[in-house]
């Protein structure tokens, strides 16, 4: 059975990816699953400098989901190289580096550093970060700013370039067109959905930053809709994600045209679940008389 899939120039042995922020820098998952059996892992978002993230509370459980306000906490590029890179060289899975910055210059800085690392197969850009030069508005919500950012990053990244977009991205059609023009290789759809939690006992908002990102099965229908819309607006390969907990969820994203899928929040609850989804997809293909993954991708229009 051929489960191989492509994201531009990047070939994955199967379409199941571990999403950024739910599998650490890879090593954290070793007690639970064999990383070499997933299609790729996406590292926790890294910036050039270490970043301490938001004050607690950082997570809040909802019905069939989790809200988070981690605030992009990460150890910074240099400590990542010191602590994790040589270990990552011992595994064979594809490694996608998720990167972010507070300014265009910081984005270019981290993208350039990642591009030079042999062990990194692709760079995924998180564009849902506050732009400190624009009063903290998200890069994703300003089409012109985003266009310039993506162009600038593309010029320094030779490797596969993926852009992670979510529901807050402005002017979707226009954005997708310039992503194509700038030579982006693929899209990760979706990021978390902005959401609010209220503490009625203490009569206040749960999170200090007020709005937090909702993920988990609660967002799956919303994520499917966004993937579906994106699929009809661009030919760029899509990594579909948002509430994938089991094989059937993964199949739904593949059927509407995602070339790969990412398991995110499910990893928190069952860190080995990706290794149930890989054979799950395979059995489905067999049961439906298909002999390669490509027969499945985009079958539902």
């Amino acid at each position: 059975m051929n489960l191989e899939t492509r994201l531009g120039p990047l070939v994955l042995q199967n379409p199941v990816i571990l999403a950024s922020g739910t599998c650490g820098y890879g090593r954290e998952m070793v007690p639970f699953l064999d990383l070499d059996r997933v299609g790729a892992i996406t590292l926790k978002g890294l910036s050039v400098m270490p970043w301490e993230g938001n004050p607690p509370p950082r997570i809040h459980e909802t019905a069939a989901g989790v809200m988070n306000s981690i605030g992009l906490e990460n150890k910074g590029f240099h400590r990542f190289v010191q602590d994790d890179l040589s270990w990552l060289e011992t595994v064979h899975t594809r490694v996608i580096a998720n990167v972010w910055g507070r300014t265009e210059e910081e984005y270019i800085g981290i993208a350039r550093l990642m591009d030079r690392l042999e062990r990194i197969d692709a760079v995924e850009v998180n564009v849902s970060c506050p732009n400190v030069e624009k009063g903290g508005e998200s890069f994703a919500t300003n089409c012109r700013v985003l266009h310039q950012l993506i162009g600038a990053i593309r010029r320094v990244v030779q490797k596969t370039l993926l852009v992670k977009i979510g529901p807050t991205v402005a002017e979707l059609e226009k954005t997708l067109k310039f992503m194509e023009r700038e030579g982006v290789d693929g899209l990760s759809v979706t990021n978390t959905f902005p959401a609010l939690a209220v503490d009625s006992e203490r009569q206040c908002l749960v999170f200090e930053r007020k709005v937090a990102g909702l993920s988990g099965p609660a967002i799956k229908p919303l994520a499917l809709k966004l993937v579906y819309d994106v699929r009809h607006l661009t030919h760029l390969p899509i990594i579909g994600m948002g509430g994938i907990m089991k094989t059937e969820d993964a199949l739904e994203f593949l059927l509407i045209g995602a070339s790969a899928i990412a398991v995110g929040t499910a990893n928190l609850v069952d860190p080995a679940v990706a290794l149930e989804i890989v054979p799950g997809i395979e059995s489905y293909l067999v049961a439906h008389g298909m002999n390669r993954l490509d027969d499945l991708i985009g079958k539902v229009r």
Partner: protein
Amino acid sequence: MKQTPVTAIKTRGGSFVELELAGKEIARVSRPGQFVMIGAGQSYDPFLKRPLGILSVQEDRFSLLFQIVGQGTKLLSQLQPGNTVSVLGPLGNGFSLHPSEAVLIAGGRGIVPLVFLASHFQQAGIPFTFFWGVKNELELVLASYLASFSPSCVLSCEEAVSGYGCGTVLTSFSSWEKTHPLRSGSRVYACGPQGMFRVMQKIPFFSGVPVEVSLEARMGCGFGVCLGCAVKKKEGSGYVHVCKDGPVFLLPEVEL
């Protein structure tokens, strides 16, 4: 995900429940101070697993003790022998196990990891004194877990109860400490509410001896990937994470 069978469940009153699970692997490798993440429901609500401290281990099974505080723990309390749950663990760093002498200080349900630690000290022949304090009579149902250490225990209750010192666990410790100098190489181990740790950080005695504290936190994953259980570092900037860097920390390390 692998399912672990429930072998026994005992309601202790005062909303405390002891849950015994089959699991040779977890029983064999667990150390005092470690915890497991346990799935409370079969559906997506509640969605996350719950972190619970390990109370004791036998050859092929282990026990958890928890208080019903919300929907997740309520569902866990309704399990029956023969039901199965999904469990990840053991997780976290655990206590250091080789002091020359130990003082254990537990507040309320903070007794759980220290009962496991005390059994280790008892087996290893390490002398210890176990201070346990509760707010009210309801929590005294947990006293039975100290029965096998009773000569080494000092109990206190903030409500007047016969047989118990009146006041907090820290008042009873402070009066004991005046007449019991600790030998060198001693350590203090504590688990309880945040308020107890905050008071400890202000008592000069505790800056002269290594104090290990086990923290409780709401967790997303329990194994260091979601970074949800952040606690501010005392020195410098940034956070530590209870699940992976802890749950056991040195008292001066963390801002409580």
